């Protein structure tokens, strides 16, 4: 999804680091990465460490980091709204990619770059349950991959209970059990249940132009 944008902006001191959250390891993503012929940095995160560090709950999410290593837009959905409405999906992606272009060209003067206080206000809250959930998930997927599947799954299940907002935990757990499980009936039921609780699957970024696309 990012290759064209990267080619367009790569001469402007810009890098994309795409991180694949995949407990199945490098072989699970070698195919797609090779096929996409990516020239930006493409990494594999078997333990979902980046999710833990940046408090992420779904894919695709993204963070904007400036030249000094400071977060100027914290974790948010990177502009691809899950929707059967293809037109809406294209529009959110277009707005998001245009915002990146504006940031890369105009730096701190871009209206999409948050001030420090705005950035802090947009940080998703990192609770003790979230910290405990990451520990459970990390141990669970390790045990699963080591062949101890029953215990591994129970730790991963605990992680999804402790942080029900994390689709990464839930879908990775289902995918380890069965490659198609991450999109199976249990997933669909969970999406409906979470949605009834007011938990949007892909909340749109707080970005000019997106507000008209909200339901």
């Amino acid at each position, binding site marked *: 999804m*990012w290759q064209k944008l990267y080619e367009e902006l790569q001469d402007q*001191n*810009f*890098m*994309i*680091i*795409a*991180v*694949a*959250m*995949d407990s199945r390891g*490098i072989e699970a993503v070698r195919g797609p*990465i*090779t096929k996409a012929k990516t020239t930006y940095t*493409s*990494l*594999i*995160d078997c333990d979902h*460490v*980046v999710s*833990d*560090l*940046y*408090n992420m709950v779904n*894919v*695709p999410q*993204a*963070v904007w*980091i400036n030249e*000094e*290593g*400071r*977060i100027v837009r*914290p974790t948010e959905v*990177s502009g691809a709204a899950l929707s059967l409405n293809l037109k809406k999906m294209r529009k959110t992606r277009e707005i998001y990619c245009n915002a*990146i272009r504006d*940031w890369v060209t105009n*730096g701190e003067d871009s209206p999409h770059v948050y001030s420090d206080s705005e950035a*802090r206000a947009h*940080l998703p*809250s*990192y609770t*003790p349950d*979230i*910290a*405990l959930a*990451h*520990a*459970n998930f*990390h*141990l669970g997927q*390790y*045990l699963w991959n*080591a062949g*101890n599947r029953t*215990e591994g799954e129970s*730790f991963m299940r605990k992680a999804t209970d402790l942080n029900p907002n994390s689709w990464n935990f839930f879908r*990775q757990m*289902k*995918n380890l059990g069965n490659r198609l499980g991450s999109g199976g009936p249990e997933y669909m039921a969970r999406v409906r249940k979470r949605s009834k609780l007011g938990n949007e699957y892909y909340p749109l970024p707080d970005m000019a132009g997106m507000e008209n696309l909200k339901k």
Partner: protein
Amino acid sequence: MTTVLAAGCELEVQGDGKRNDQTQLWMRAEELHTLTGWDLKPEGLCKDEACVPLAPESLKEMVDGEFIDASSLWQSLDRPILHDAARKTWMLGEGASDRSRQLESLQAPDFSLPDIDGRMHSLSDHQGKKVLLATWASW
């Protein structure tokens, strides 16, 4: 042999065989440092510039020669610690307050991960550039 996991790290520790069969996780000071970056010093438990003071009596209980009771230390730091039923695999989790503090500082936390050829790359390799850190998955 006991496997200990921490965010971004995994280590086989020799530990102190006779006690690791029980409820505690003992390891050498340098193993704790490799796994977590924490060191035990006379002033307490320290990481980088920050130190958490520990009462002398609890320090005494947690240290035995070159071995440290990492499980008690980790609990005294109020961080999650988990293990499997066989106590052969342990997880030293990070605390919510540390993660929050790091994010509130707005300094992007660094990490090192492999590419498909196994070469390691760090976020900090790209300092001086704007970076879009984006996630995806095959599932």
